[in-house]
């Protein structure tokens, strides 16, 4: 299940948000060694940037125990975007970056090391959830900048629903390119087929809910332990 977290319900997900920032530190600072990003960090062990604000949405795959298995950040281009503000040179046609409420950017897409298996179960679930999120909010296009080594798996998952926005460009730790995704119903159908997924993946817990989804996870864990003990 992929949980939607925003300013509206962040209070219920504080441990998961902290775990996400730790995961991002491991992925970007320790594994990919992004030196410039490291210099920007105020708190070692947690990766954050200016786009982690009240307008950001996070799609987090959570395990049965509420553990964070990956992360994805989304925001409307109207609210400012990494691609528009810092990586405009990656986009050949500037019109594609015109801020629009139906064009969002997704960034900081990653999976925990234990979920980077070749079956890609978490990857397909995250992609399905992304499309479901976009369909629920009338988002017509999603733009992103990503390392070019991410492109092959993106192309395999999205087929013709992914298009380059410009040529790949080198940066000190690798090579980056800008992409555009079309998250429509066709894409959702194809993604579910490819990933063997039958149910909706997105779980959005409105802030008004009386039951905290994390407590549900804990309850499920307790129930499972009781059943195991009884067996």
């Amino acid at each position, binding site marked *: 299940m992929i949980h939607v977290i925003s300013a509206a319900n962040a209070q219920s997900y504080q441990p998961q948000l902290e775990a996400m920032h730790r995961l991002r530190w491991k992925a970007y600072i320790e594994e990919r060694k992004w030196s410039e990003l490291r210099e920007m960090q105020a708190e070692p062990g947690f990766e954050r940037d200016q786009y982690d604000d009240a307008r950001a949405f996070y799609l987090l795959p959570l395990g049965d125990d509420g553990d964070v298995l990956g992360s994805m950040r989304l925001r409307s281009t109207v609210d400012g975007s990494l691609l528009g503000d810092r990586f405009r040179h990656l986009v*050949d*046609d500037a019109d594609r970056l015109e801020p629009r409420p139906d064009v969002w950017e997704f960034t900081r897409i990653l999976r925990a090391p234990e979920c*980077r298996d*070749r079956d890609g179960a978490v990857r397909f679930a995250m992609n399905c959830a992304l499309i479901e999120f976009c369909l629920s909010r009338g988002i017509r296009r999603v733009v992103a900048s990503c390392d*070019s*080594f*991410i*492109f*092959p*798996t993106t*192309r*395999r998952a999205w087929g*013709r629903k992914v*298009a*380059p926005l*410009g*040529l*790949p*460009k*080198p940066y000190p730790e*690798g*090579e980056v*390119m800008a992409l555009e995704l079309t998250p429509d119903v066709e894409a959702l159908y194809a993604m579910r087929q490819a990933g063997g997924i039958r149910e909706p993946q997105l779980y959005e817990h409105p802030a008004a809910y009386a039951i905290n989804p994390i407590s549900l996870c804990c309850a499920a864990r307790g129930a499972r332990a009781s059943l195991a003990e009884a067996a």
Partner: protein
Amino acid sequence: MSAEFRAALEFIELAENSRDLEELREALEHVLQGFGVSHFTLARMHRPRDGAAQFTVSIRGVPEAWAEYYWSERFFNFDSVVQLSLQRPLAFSWTDIDRSRLSKASKNLYGEVRDALHVDGGFVIPTHDENGLTGLVALYHEQPELAKQARQALKLIALYGIERANELFFEQGSPPAPTQCPLSLRQREILAFAAAGKSETDTGEILGISSTTVREHLQNLRATLAVRTKMQAVAIAVHQGWIKP
């Protein structure tokens, strides 16, 4: 829109609409001619769930006689282009390769390529995903160097070309690549001694070659099988029946 990006987009459109590998080859040939590339090869790394990774050429844009000669001589075993592609995801030209560290056979190969294809430059575009090398496009051209924008466009072309070649390969229902042993007789001998617990020095003495040569063979066969350690190579070779346990 830059001319290079437009050329890449045109190729992507043609590639997406290609119905088979021959049509993809034609699309690739067409776009590469615009960049002054006279010959090319597109190779894919197939990683089956169980078994050894297989490096196979899917599209040949070189004279058939040269391609046959290259494969019959197992040049890929010591071709520095293949070995460097396994290690790094960024494109490189022949001039980026440190020739002083190459084996004599590997150095000679450059001369052979130049003579056979009448080219002065080579540009190699490996593509990687999270699991490592997914394929490479090797380009041979008359100019010693390509312009920066052209290099970037060619990277995008390679990314799409290799992914589309993969799709077409499986859509066409082609039989899986042959599991014939990609190792030379000498490499199999050395691997068999490694499986028997012999050191590189022992193996060298038995075969009458230096331990450095043994190490070089081991390095090459690890690159061919796309594995990191000698024991991983042994495991694959035993599993495939190339050496006896």
